[in-house]
């Protein structure tokens, strides 16, 4: 039930009620409600759950974590 996946925002329709947009999940585009991510921009990654974006991905945080793993791997090799 709480399954949610990251996708990239391709279009935003702020005139529609509620705010909707096209989001790409690995190339598959879906209509996603963007009402709960009011500051979202085209190109942002969002986390989508049952057709709704519930957060905008903090890409800096995501990359920071991955860089940390890479660093650990390097020092332990």
């Amino acid at each position, binding site marked *: *039930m*709480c*399954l*949610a*996946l*990251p996708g*990239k925002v391709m279009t935003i329709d702020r005139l529609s*009620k*509620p705010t909707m947009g096209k989001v790409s*999940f*690995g190339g598959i585009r879906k209509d996603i*409600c963007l*009402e*709960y*991510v*009011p500051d979202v921009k085209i190109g942002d*990654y969002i*986390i989508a*759950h*049952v*057709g*709704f974006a*519930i*957060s905008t*991905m*903090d*890409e800096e*945080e*995501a990359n920071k*974590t*991955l860089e940390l*793993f890479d660093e*650990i*791997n390097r020092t*332990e090799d």
Partner: protein
Amino acid sequence: MRYIDEYRNGQYARTIAGRIRATVTHPWTLMEICGGQTHTIVKYGIEELLPENITLIHGPGCPVCVTPTELIDKAIGIASQSDVILASFGDMLRVPGSSKDLLTVKAEGGNVRILYSPLDAVAIARHNPGKEVVFFAVGFETTAPTTALAVREAARLRLRNFSIICSHVLVPPAVLALLSSPHSRIQGLLAAGHVCTVMGYEEYVPIATTYRIPIVVTGFEPVDILQGVYMTVKQLEEGRSEVENQYARSVQREGNVSAQKLMQAVFDVTDRKWRGIGMIPNSGLMLKNEFAEFDAELRFDTARTTVEESPLCIAGEILQGMRKPPECPAFGSQCTPERPLGAPMVSSEGACAAYYRYGTVKPERKEAGLLQEGRG
């Protein structure tokens, strides 16, 4: 896919597992709350990567599993009426009520539909003015805002033929109920990342302090889970009991404020019965008075049923992390996904379904889990 594949990277997983092995000096029992996390753990064999003295027990985080049978029977009663379209998520339709499930109602000619989004139910109501459209709304705090928006849309569009059966439940009250049980073996918690995406994690701080257990907000991919386990175990070894956030790419401390606001505008908190567990105070959501016209339980006159669960099924103990699915005598014999006795065998988040599907059973681990005493 970006931001998924990286978190399924085997090299990262082995690296973190190595760090866990280097950190652990005591046996520890952790609970992951969310059924989605349980599926990741069983599917990717995460327990195989962990040292023997770390035990993962599975929590109640399967909304479909804890929806009371009486409510499913009510939905079946409503869906069986001729002028009704009943819509819900696919998982909900396969959960057994006292005599059948909603898919059987569909097979018998009922108009039962599987939804992708709660907004689809609003669209169905708009396109079918001659029908009553009922959305069977289930889910934790992750899903509740999506139902809230559907109700607000129905109100804005003045839809008279739309209503919901509201079975939304809240995680922190259930966590409190589990931790205050004398049977609790939980020494550390992996909190559900998507619930916290909506709600933030401040409400877990008093829980961590009161019960002196570390709580780590954790994501859903294998590397996320391993990192969540590492952060929890590190706290335990250092004698800390804080709330930390592993899933910072999605979760902020305050959560999604606009989603919380609409939830609060549409729902009140209420006591709720959890299937297999019992009544938990302040653990459910109900429509506020001003949205009562959208309450299907008020709109439809449905008979109250009293329900007895199968005496063979130990779903309640499984949902509370007291036992694991392979310990159930009916597991895989009298109870399978095709012929389930209890909801955890059907739902894509149910622990029994995960063990049945991915089939990882290590008898020696099972015994270790049973023998281990909690820290109290």
